[in-house]
């Protein structure tokens, strides 16, 4: 079944982008939002920590701890993980997986150390890719997409998996924020090359886009932020559209427990 994953950007323990849900006491509380997405039928969650200050980083561990107490679907923490000890802190607090990005590009051995210590199933490698201005293919960027890493996206994906990545979170920088749809060419190229699940990210704008990421891009999961947070589409609408397009998704249990 294809997973539908809302992504929450978190700064010093608070959700950054506005979320238009009714019935939330505190729309800035990532845990309350996460529980709401669980209730709506999200299959998994990603928290992306964008806290810039070093002092603020402990908040993400506290977030993992509180989320594990109240949310009963898998969740991944990404952003600011620079060492296997950083990863241990969020996993021990209750996160199911942790994502590494820039730090893994600077030190690819980090992937191996994390996979050996915690198992590949915990280790997500996030790849920010942008189509080359000239010629074919995609380049990898680090530091939130500001700095070219000097790596080819496909080659980096293959290396990351060889080093122990259990999953790839692939964001198209060309599409991110455009609402023009996922980059199915990028996704298809990567999915065909690696034996681990690929999460599609960047570009979700219409309901059709989600199924296209799977049918054309062969993604194993679809991730989106603003279309969910802004209330453009509910998890249910996305799942119904995917099911109508022939993509298997987890049915939503309406009745509670």
């Amino acid at each position, binding site marked *: *079944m*294809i997973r539908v994953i809302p992504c929450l950007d978190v700064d010093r323990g608070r959700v950054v982008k506005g979320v238009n849900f009714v019935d939330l006491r505190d729309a800035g509380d990532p845990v309350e939002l996460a529980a709401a997405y669980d209730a709506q039928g999200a299959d998994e969650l990603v928290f992306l920590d964008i806290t810039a200050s070093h002092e603020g980083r402990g908040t993400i561990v506290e977030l993992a701890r509180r989320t594990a107490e109240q949310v*009963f*679907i*898998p969740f991944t923490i990404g952003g600011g993980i620079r060492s296997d000890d950083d990863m241990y802190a969020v996993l021990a607090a209750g996160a199911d997986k942790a994502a590494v990005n820039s730090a893994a590009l600077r030190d690819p051995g980090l992937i191996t150390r994390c996979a050996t210590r915690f198992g590949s199933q915990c280790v997500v490698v996030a790849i920010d890719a942008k189509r080359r201005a000239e010629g074919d293919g995609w380049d990898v960027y680090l530091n939130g997409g500001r700095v070219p890493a000097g790596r080819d996206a496909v080659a980096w994906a293959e290396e990351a998996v060889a080093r122990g990545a259990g999953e790839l979170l692939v964001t198209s920088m060309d599409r991110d924020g455009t609402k023009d749809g996922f980059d199915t060419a990028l996704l298809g190229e990567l999915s065909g090359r690696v034996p*681990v699940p690929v999460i599609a990210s960047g570009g979700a704008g219409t309901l059709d886009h989600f199924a296209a990421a799977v049918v054309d891009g062969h993604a194993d999961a679809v991730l989106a932020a603003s279309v969910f947070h802004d209330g453009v589409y509910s998890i249910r609408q996305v799942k119904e559209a995917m099911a109508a397009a022939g993509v298997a998704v*987890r049915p939503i*249990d309406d009745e*509670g427990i």
Partner: protein
Amino acid sequence: MTGGPRVAVLDVETSNLRSAVKALERMGADVTVVTRPHEAAGAGAVVLPGVGHFGEAAERLTSRGLGAVACAAAAQDVPLLGICLGMQLLLDASDEAPGARGLGLIPGTVRRLDTPRKVPQIGWNPVEWSPGTALGSVGDPARRTYYFVHSFAARPTDPAHVIGRADYGGPFVAAIARGPVAGVQFHPEKSSRAGLALIGRWLQSVRDGAVRRLEMPT
């Protein structure tokens, strides 16, 4: 209902321990996390969670004496639930760690998933429950779709010990049971309402059963 059953959760340093405890508590259990065997004395049920490597976990179970707790539960008819790797440890052995010994509470071995699809399986999958099992849920697939993360699956020797099946490019065993011992390959603690409901049914079966308290030498 006068308080939930006291449930001993065996700590083999697995990363899903905390989530399992929180889910059990959410469904009304009075949880004690057990690192030494005598701490399990008096428990009305035992949970063995698990994520990771069969060989390392089997070694930890033995060295800490917690395998003995699981075996005592089975012998004394105290309900025991294994989750994910904790389920695999209920069997005799695993291809993941040739030579390592499981608890042998359900005869059989653990084999690598036989599938053309990506391994590990990471994601949600519906389970077909055998009729009449207390753990299972029949009917609406939304109520019996759970979250799996695994590369290996149980192969009980006796098909009668299989109570739940699923398919991932080929059939595999999703749940097993023998007497007071049960195991699920998926993570009920990460399976949203369907998973919490399963934990609730298991706790209910503990309450409904003859009240037994685990006896452990001190």
